[in-house]
């Protein structure tokens, strides 16, 4: 089946961000396709290239990057959520005159239309919050 995931919570707090990455890994192992992971609201913190996690805590960023490399997942950060939280790609950093990109290049900044498109094409939408 084709899955789309919607991630609404930050890796720094709560459970939702961790559930999302673990769910993605299990779904792929079960032979499903994940066409797109859409990060919205505090979920966009997942794309921060600057976040430093303690060594005894799993780094969600590295998990997403590995999954996207191995399975060609699209990792999309909602543009309006991301900009407010200081999460910029090179283009946005230049446009808004900030010192440089702050997101990992495995993530793409785009609009909510990408979520709408994913929802209308997937067999399953799974939301992770809290």
């Amino acid at each position, binding site marked *: 089946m084709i*899955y789309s995931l919607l991630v609404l919570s930050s890796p720094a707090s709560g*459970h939702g961000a961790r559930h999302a990455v673990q*769910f993605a890994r*299990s779904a792929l192992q079960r032979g499903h396709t994940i066409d797109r992971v859409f990060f919205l609201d505090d979920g966009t913190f997942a794309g921060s290239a600057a976040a430093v996690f303690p060594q005894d805590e799993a780094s969600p960023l590295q998990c997403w990057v590995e999954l996207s490399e191995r399975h060609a997942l699209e990792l999309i950060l909602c543009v309006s959520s991301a900009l407010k939280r200081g999460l910029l790609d090179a283009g946005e950093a230049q446009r808004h005159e900030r010192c440089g990109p702050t997101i990992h290049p495995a993530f793409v900044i785009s609009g909510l239309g990408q979520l709408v498109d994913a929802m209308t094409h997937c067999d*399953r*939408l799974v*939301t992770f919050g*809290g």
Partner: protein
Amino acid sequence: MSVILHTLNASPASGAFDDCLRAITADDALLLLGDGVYAAMAHSRAWERLRACGAPLYVLRADASAAGVLPLLEEIEVVDMDGFVALTERYPRQLAWY
């Protein structure tokens, strides 16, 4: 398309817990995860309310274990992440409460 997999990631004192119980029917399923696992503590008031909804109940093993709730469970199916994915295969729609 009427059945729903409800995922509850909020403690029993939350409005999310109450609203989830309001929407659920006996044909649905409920997966407790994150802070939702506390609702599965046997003999608690929350657990009595959950059981009354009639839907099959599941709890995520890793979160129940981290919370110290695993030894306090009675009559609830414990699933791992693979089991969560399997539930989404069976139930075409998911609704997240948190």
